């Protein structure tokens, strides 16, 4: 049986830089999504798809810690981030104005892997899991791959706009699902995977809520070995103190070549082989989020 690799990689901190950028725009998309773009030349030059930056969300000690955000897309020396107002940090980022300073520490973390083989890249994005994929899809296209994005959200308004995924590239096809059926398939985005996971797929990249990713991991586990892509990766989240492997705060349960252990989301992730994550243990952990 062909197995997808489950060895975790480590991020390359030699490319990370603490950079003061300048806000270019804060776009309100539908459904509460915000797209923040900022002139961050070094991040723009160095970031790889799936990597993230630690953004400072205000001048004072509240919020104290930076917040991690995937680099959503890069255009020239501008980088964009997509998020929702969920707490103080995202509220403050959304309240920035053109010309305000924005501190970014990045790029950080592992990115997605593109195997050498020609073929299709299948992207599965749930909710805000859309964030890394405009950049990742565009990179796959530039590398000559076909790209299919399975894009899911609770409602039509909360779907990341397909034209923003494509960024003008017709080779990126977007297929949608909503929980309430207000656009595309009514149901979970994972319902769509089986139909699209055929032998042409060389890489599966996913980002979204843990239950979505766990379902996907299960599907990969059960899938016909002949259909398995050589790369099946998920981007995960954990509360972060630093983002570069020092605070040891962002532990996630994995079971890779080194056995069951805690891996650091910020340096051994956020992108991990989907089968390396110990989804069962992750489900049993108390929630990190404070509601």
């Amino acid at each position, binding site marked *: 049986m062909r197995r997808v690799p489950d060895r975790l990689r480590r991020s390359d901190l*030699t490319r990370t830089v603490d950079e003061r950028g300048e806000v270019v725009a804060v776009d309100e998309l539908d459904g509460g999504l915000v797209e923040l773009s900022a002139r961050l030349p070094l991040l723009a030059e160095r970031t790889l798809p799936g990597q993230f930056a630690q953004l400072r969300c205000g001048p004072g000690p509240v919020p104290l810690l930076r917040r991690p955000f995937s680099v959503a897309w890069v255009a020239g020396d501008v980088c964009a981030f997509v998020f929702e107002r969920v707490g103080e940090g995202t509220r403050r980022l959304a309240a920035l104005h053109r010309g305000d300073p924005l501190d970014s520490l990045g790029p950080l973390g592992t990115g997605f892997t593109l195997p050498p083989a020609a073929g299709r890249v299948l992207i599965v994005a749930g909710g805000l899991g859309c964030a890394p994929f405009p950049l990742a899809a565009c990179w796959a296209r530039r590398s000559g791959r076909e790209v299919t994005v399975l894009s899911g959200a609770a409602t039509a308004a909360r779907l990341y706009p397909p034209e923003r995924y494509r960024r003008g590239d017709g080779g990126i096809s977007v297929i949608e699902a909503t929980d309430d059926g207000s656009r595309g398939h009514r149901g979970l985005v994972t319902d769509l995977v089986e139909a699209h996971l055929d032998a042409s797929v060389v890489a599966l990249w996913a980002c979204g809520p843990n239950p979505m990713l766990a379902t996907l991991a299960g599907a990969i586990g059960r899938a016909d070995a002949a259909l398995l892509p050589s790369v099946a990766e998920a981007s995960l989240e954990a509360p972060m103190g630093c983002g570069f492997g020092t605070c040891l705060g962002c532990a996630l349960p994995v079971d890779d070549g080194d056995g069951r252990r805690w891996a650091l989301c910020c340096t051994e992730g956020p992108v991990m082989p989907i089968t390396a994550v110990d989804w069962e243990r992750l489900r049993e952990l108390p929630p*990190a989020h404070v509601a």
Partner: protein
Amino acid sequence: MSRELTLDPRVDLGRGLLLPNPVGVASGTFGYGFEFEHLVDIQRLGAIYTKGTTPLPRAGNAPPRVAETAAGMLNSIGLHNPGVEHVATAYAPRFAGWRVPVVVNVAAATVEEYVDCLRRLEIDGVAGIELNISCPNIANGLDFGRDAAAAGRLVQACRAATSRCLIVKLSPNVTDIGAVARAVEAAGADAVSAVNTYIGMKVNLGSGRPVLPGRGTGGLSGPAIKPLALAAVAAVRAAVSLPVVGVGGIAEPADALEFFVAGADAVQVGTANFTEPGAAIRVLDGVVAYAEAHRLGRLTELRAVPAPQPA
């Protein structure tokens, strides 16, 4: 008008440990220095105090391990570290090539384990030992730090086991930090550092439980605790004549200067490293500039020892 440099930035912590300058980085907030090598010029630091190192490797606590609070953060890392053997064999040789002194922070559960660790660290590259008797995130992690007599006995045994400068890191979660400081001074410590984190809790209303695992508590650090750490340093300063390394909430040069006024001989920058990898260097530059502007020969000239606190 010609302007000469007046400041001698060096700090003598005793037993041969002469820090090139007073601004170091706190244990657990700078790893073993390697993550920062590419981000900042770590060789300019006054000292690197390593992550708490235990006799055996430790996987650390289950997540979530960090949570933010108002101007602070809670952590419950659980001394996730590769163990003293790995530090001695893989890291110390690299430290030996560095200009910055590396002080290994050591934590253990029993006197014997502490002693074994210290013996193993009598090697090149280890410039000093910081005895963590105050980690709030492992079972019994606070027993030594919260009992002056127990702390004294531990330090006495450790004193016999190491030729290195022995800095004892005090817990602030006590009635009388001065009494613990006096006990470790009497037992042969070369210096003390104050403070470790404060025991705190955050609740997740969604789950109806504390955010952090286990007993639900973690250690509070960051700007929120600076006033508490300053009072603790002042109390320690009034209690002992050892060098005092101040730590707690330092993020700006002015914060560090406050610690010198309160009685510190040197300082450590902790949580601020997470949000600004260059924080300690910026604090150092600011402190030196201030000292030069005020024509200080030593930063300890800033000291204004308040009256000792009642026990």
